[in-house]
């Protein structure tokens, strides 16, 4: 019985190796051919690492991808700083990666081993947080924008100005976010402040004054995206600053619209980074896996399963037309033109103090 099991295991392993060889012509196996590690560990969130998203890579490379799931990359960074976390790759976002880099837990990626990185959307070529000191550290895999959302019927037409969030016409029917200092950033965008994440004291004061003045118009500050979805679905709120998942309400025949305001949207990406714990064969496997993440398969499955937008042109091209339409992914410029990138504030305590002043007022 034991021998039979071993034989079967050998057979499966041989079949996997065979599949890897036959698939060598595909884009995303180019990097995988260098992989030799049997297991790599990926620090990521649950939505990006469902089993069917990872299975194609394992099938071709023979490398198992184990996950260390988190709701905030800081959780894994804390472990990496302490040492011995056993995490080889980390998904981090433009809103946080500066801190991870400063903590010294990341290492550069050899882009020669990630050929699919050249097929990433052009809008991500020069974005902050992917390179440090002239070296490439991250490859963006998922992106999105945060913007104004509104109930079209009650709003009385198309909204294209963030000013709607400060308009007395919608008094008592507006909602703003309570987390990540996002309302401060929206206020700064409305006031035309060029660098909302490094505001001067005067700029910050003007934003705080604006948001305090806005308070009588605001129905409530939403705490998580489910909260905003509920507010929009029940009609408590007509216009708010929101995230992409709100658009799922359209499935319930609620006419929710996504605005492309003239002041721009707040853009974010999540990228894959290698940690300092990845070395030798493990590093090669991690680079192969990173190549897979921006190949033609992962982004398509991610879009189908989780509704997130891939950064990979290869994956977009491999998507059926209805999925492209559902994700509204054919024209990234509509979202990213004039976008403000969601960065980590230069002085988080000052931003928290400012937001406290708004909440306490």
């Amino acid at each position, binding site marked *: 019985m034991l021998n039979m099991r071993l034989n079967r295991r050998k057979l499966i392993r041989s079949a996997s190796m065979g599949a890897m060889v036959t698939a060598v012509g595909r884009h995303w196996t180019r990097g995988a051919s260098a992989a030799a590690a049997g297991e790599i560990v990926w620090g990521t969130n649950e939505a990006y690492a469902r089993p069917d998203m990872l299975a194609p890579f394992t099938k071709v490379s023979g490398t198992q991808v184990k996950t260390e799931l988190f709701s905030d990359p800081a959780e894994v960074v804390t472990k990496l700083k302490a040492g011995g976390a056993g995490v080889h790759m980390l998904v981090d976002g433009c809103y946080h990666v500066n801190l991870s880099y400063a903590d010294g837990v990341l290492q550069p990626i050899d882009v020669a081993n990630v050929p699919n990185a050249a097929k990433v959307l052009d809008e991500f070529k020069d974005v902050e947080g992917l390179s440090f000191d002239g070296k490439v550290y991250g490859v963006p895999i998922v992106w999105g924008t945060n913007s104004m959302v509104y109930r079209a019927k009650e709003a009385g037409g198309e909204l294209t100005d963030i000013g709607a969030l400060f308009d007395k016409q919608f008094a008592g029917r507006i909602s703003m976010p309570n987390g990540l200092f996002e309302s401060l950033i929206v206020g700064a965008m409305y006031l035309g402040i060029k660098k909302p994440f490094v505001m001067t004291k005067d700029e910050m004061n003007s934003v705080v004054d604006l948001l305090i003045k806005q308070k009588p118009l605001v129905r*409530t500050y939403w705490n998580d995206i489910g909260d905003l979805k509920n507010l929009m679905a*029940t009609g408590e709120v007509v216009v708010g600053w929101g995230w992409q998942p709100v658009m799922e309400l359209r499935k319930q025949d609620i006419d929710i619209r996504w605005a492309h305001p003239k002041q721009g949207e707040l853009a974010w990406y999540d990228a894959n980074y290698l940690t300092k714990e990845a070395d030798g064969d493990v590093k090669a496997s991690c680079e192969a896996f990173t190549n897979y993440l921006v190949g033609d398969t992962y982004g398509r499955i991610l879009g189908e399963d989780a509704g997130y937008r891939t950064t990979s042109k290869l994956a977009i091209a491999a998507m059926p037309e209805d999925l492209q339409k559902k994700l509204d992914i054919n024209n990234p410029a509509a979202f990213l033109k004039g976008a403000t990138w969601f960065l980590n504030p230069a002085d988080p305590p000052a931003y928290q*103090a400012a937001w*406290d*002043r708004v*909440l*306490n007022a």
Partner: protein
Amino acid sequence: MSAGLVKNARGSGWITAAALPWLASLLVFFALPLAGLAALSLTDQSGQVSLANYASLADLASGRLDVLLRTLRIGVIVIIASLCIALPVAYYLAKVVQSPRIESLILLLVSATFLAGPLVRTVSWRGILGVHGLINESLLQLGLISEPILSLLYGELAMTLALTYNVFPFLLFTTYLSMKVIDDRIIAAARDLGASPAAAFFRVVLPLAAPGVVTGAVLVFVPTLSAVLEPEILGGTSSRLMATAIRDQFFHAHNWPLGATLTVVLIVSGTITLMLVALVTSLALRACSHYGLSTGVPSHAK
């Protein structure tokens, strides 16, 4: 010394010994963490000793003092609102209802609301007070209003209603128990001596139930001070309470010393307020026993 006294003394020694583990756990799990919190509040983020966090409370522009005062004010309002609901219900259950089955059924119904959990109990107010909620829809159907009343939800009113709803059973149960143990013959004697039902309630029942009422007030006040759900889900934009501010310092700003300072200030000011509430309640109940609230006539004048 009699044999009984010796036995009692030995018994008290055993009792003291038996209490030691509990006293030790009190020290380890309550006193030491509180001391640590107090020490942390006296530092800045670099770990240096500093009073800056306490000084920042005096900065009126920060609004922290407003939040503290709002928290204490809401706590007192919730006690008063809970008293208004719990006192008549507790009296009715303890002294009016004759059937133990009905008594148990009503208490079971009140307890059952706890099984739903605070989140569901709090969110359910949205269905009552919202734009398309029960009240607005009813008023619109009756033609009493032409537009929904927005101020019902997301503000101090909704938050206070939910807080009261979530905590008043604590006051109800303690008051009910303390009224239940009052000997009915005492009330009957008061009635025989000419006291009206209201006078008997205020001059006999309420003073005798005072320990339960005061305990219930404490049980209602403490969770109100530490409420996070109600202000976040129903409070709107200007109903922030201290617990939310503390949470944000610990988990969003990662400013643990300031979070510790706010916690210490809340504990100290909450304790003082609680003592004042207990004092006022006791005085009020004592006044009830001397001056029949129902008649307004001092007892010595009769």
